[in-house]
């Protein structure tokens, strides 16, 4: 297929650690940046565009650019929480097309385990200057209960069950068993998921992602440079983004921003959901995956519960293999931000470098999607469509 390339992902690296007690955030940034450059066959001096989130310590990109000694002509610190890194790849492709940079480095790092965060649920960076603060924080708004309310309403509107949501975790766990670096490699059953303690109705403990340290990085570049390197060609052929929120009080929380970002990306790429061989779907919680499946068009609205049953997301068994690294539900959700690892596993699948037990045959078209922020109140969806050339 000869679709116009936006840009190519030529380097991808996932940090092997899941517990970074012995590393600083800056060291993690260096590890992932140099790891992705090595994977691409490029050098630090080649980088002229740097894309990072607020996880990079310092003022925007400045401290890490200094620490890594990057000589840059383009920077972008878009922050939509966990989906930032999908937007970064899209923005990098646009910057490359506009001639603003040639070789873009995108990083993510985090160490919530080392810092003792992520388990208590009450650590938030909300600021009273946020216009929403006084209408949400006094009521105990947390990540968990926003996703809980989304799942509850989906169940109410469409009859979705806890057992159906559990299938999403089961599928991720089937993949994670093959990943020696996965935070947990235990294969779960539907019964185990629905019998794990409820943390926030209707979500069980095993409906939630893992809390891990580490991170990852990707390198994005223009076609001439990509073709001069020795790596398989992973072409970005579509991208879309959509911040979604409360719309002045008139909203439907069971429709995520993926309904918009996916449509934009598919139209951009000139392909349809039926063409996709593999999908990396943001899996902060099982309900997050269910909404993306519907909103991206892999099934009709309300049919996500039936779609995920009976192993339909398991590689080699189902129609739509997802998160073959074990996803955020089992493998890695570094810094409580799962966007980067979604991109990396999609790149592995397109390259044919996923674990042989989960590699999708002839995986020439893949999708990666991120949902950053909180479903149910404010989030941004970012969609990428990747093609093997």
């Amino acid at each position, binding site marked *: 297929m000869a679709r116009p390339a936006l840009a190519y992902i030529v380097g991808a690296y996932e940090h092997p650690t899941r517990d970074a007690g012995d590393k600083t955030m800056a060291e993690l940034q260096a590890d992932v940046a140099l790891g992705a450059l090595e994977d691409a066959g490029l050098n630090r001096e080649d980088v002229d565009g740097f894309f990072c989130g607020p996880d990079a310590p310092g003022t925007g990109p400045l401290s890490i650019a200094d620490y890594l000694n990057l000589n840059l002509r383009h920077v972008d610190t878009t922050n939509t929480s966990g989906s930032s890194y999908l937007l970064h790849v899209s923005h990098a492709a646009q910057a490359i097309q506009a001639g603003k940079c040639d070789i873009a480095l995108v990083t993510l790092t985090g160490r919530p385990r080392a810092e003792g965060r992520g388990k208590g649920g009450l650590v938030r960076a909300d600021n009273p200057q946020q216009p*929403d603060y006084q*209408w949400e924080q006094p*009521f105990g708004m947390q990540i968990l209960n926003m996703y809980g309310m989304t799942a509850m309403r989906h169940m109410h509107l469409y009859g979705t069950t806890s057992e159906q949501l559990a299938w999403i975790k089961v599928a991720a766990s089937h993949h994670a068993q093959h990943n020696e670096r996965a935070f947990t490699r235990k294969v779960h059953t539907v019964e185990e998921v629905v019998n794990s303690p409820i943390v926030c109705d209707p979500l069980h403990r095993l409906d939630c992602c893992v809390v891990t340290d580490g991170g990852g990085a990707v390198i994005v570049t223009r076609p001439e440079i990509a073709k001069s390197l020795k790596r398989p060609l992973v072409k970005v052929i579509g991208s879309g983004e959509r911040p979604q929120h409360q719309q002045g009080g008139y909203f439907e929380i069971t429709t995520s921003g993926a309904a918009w970002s996916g449509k934009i990306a598919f139209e951009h790429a000139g392909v349809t959901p039926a063409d996709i061989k593999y999908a990396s779907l943001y899996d902060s919680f099982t309900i997050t995956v269910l909404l993306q499946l519907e909103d991206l068009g892999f099934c009709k609205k309300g049919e996500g519960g039936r779609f995920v049953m009976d192993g339909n997301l398991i590689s080699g068994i189902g129609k739509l293999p997802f998160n073959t690294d074990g996803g955020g539900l089992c493998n890695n959700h570094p810094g409580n931000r799962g966007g980067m690892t979604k991109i990396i596993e999609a790149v592995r699948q397109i390259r044919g470098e996923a674990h042989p037990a989960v590699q999708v045959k002839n995986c020439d078209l893949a999708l990666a999607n991120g949902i950053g922020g909180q479903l149910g109140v404010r989030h941004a969806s970012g969609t990428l469509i990747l093609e093997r050339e």
Partner: protein
Amino acid sequence: MSERKYIEPQPSAETQAFWDGAKHGKLLVRSCRACGKAHWYPRNHCPLCSSRDLQWIEASGDGEVYSYSVMRRADPPYVMAYVTLAEGPTMMTNLVDCNADHIRIGDKVHVRFIETADGAHLPMFSPKGKHND
């Protein structure tokens, strides 16, 4: 089980009237004179039509449960909810004085105000009638 502690709302000039009304048991909602619609949360501009010609109206206090989730692992557990007001918009709130196991989406609820340690009055909702005891 501990007593619930609330984060204080920190009113602003834009919202002080709401919190003053709450102290007197009134649920005030911002309504737009230009498009006729109420919005949530209250702003000095209409997020629906961009008009700045707004008024405070006293809501009936009636609403329906749009969704909810019981924060089981909090101490004490509490019921996070969205309630769709009779005036139109849906607001984030809590359900109180109810049996969490009996709540259903669509239940009719009515506002009541819960006082924080610093004396703010938070608009929360309880089921109407006795069916939820």
